[in-house]
């Protein structure tokens, strides 16, 4: 199991992956926005997205869970 967490305070701009998706290492899960920049959040392992914990428009804090990949 791999937990993907936010590395900074940001707005969730786009949710690209869905729970149940099969992803490869490096696939984009969500796109955050911070300081006017787009910051892609990538899968850190290959597997199945078991949890996608954010929705578009959410604000995430540093360390918040974004997704779980099994």
């Amino acid at each position, binding site marked *: 199991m791999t937990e993907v967490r936010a590395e900074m305070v940001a*707005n969730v*701009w786009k949710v690209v992956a869905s729970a149940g998706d099969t992803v490869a290492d490096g696939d984009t899960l969500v796109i955050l*926005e911070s*300081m*006017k*920049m*787009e910051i892609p959040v990538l899968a850190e392992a290959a597997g199945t997205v078991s949890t996608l914990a954010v929705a578009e*428009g959410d604000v995430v804090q540093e360390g918040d869970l974004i997704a779980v990949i099994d």
Partner: protein
Amino acid sequence: MSVPDGLATGARATLRVAVTEADTAQAAGSGDVPVLATPRLLALAEAACVAAIATRMTPSLTSVGIAARLEHRQASPVGAELDIEAELTEIDGVRLVFVFIARPADGADQVIGAGTLERVVVDRERFLARAEGARHRLD
């Protein structure tokens, strides 16, 4: 996203401007005296930064301001002429750091203003789409 290939530190530009009534603190609403407004100086400094990299940007890319540190050391009355020079001093991913200095255009050895500005390179259309998206979420 990355910055255009031709963009490099050392890029610089100088704007020469004459202070008009429209540039004053009275006009800007930032004060009540008829001298160059600090937010107007900031806008001119940002414009000098944009000019410094203008020839190296591609049409689909633009840059937007994200941070500023500004000292406004001397008042400039209406009619005063200033040279505002900006130089790109650091590229960190898509983040650009500029320094600027504003001096009298007559060459006098004085500093009217100085500071550091940060901008990020963004895709113009994607940036505007995100800004629109944020507005819709606020509605």
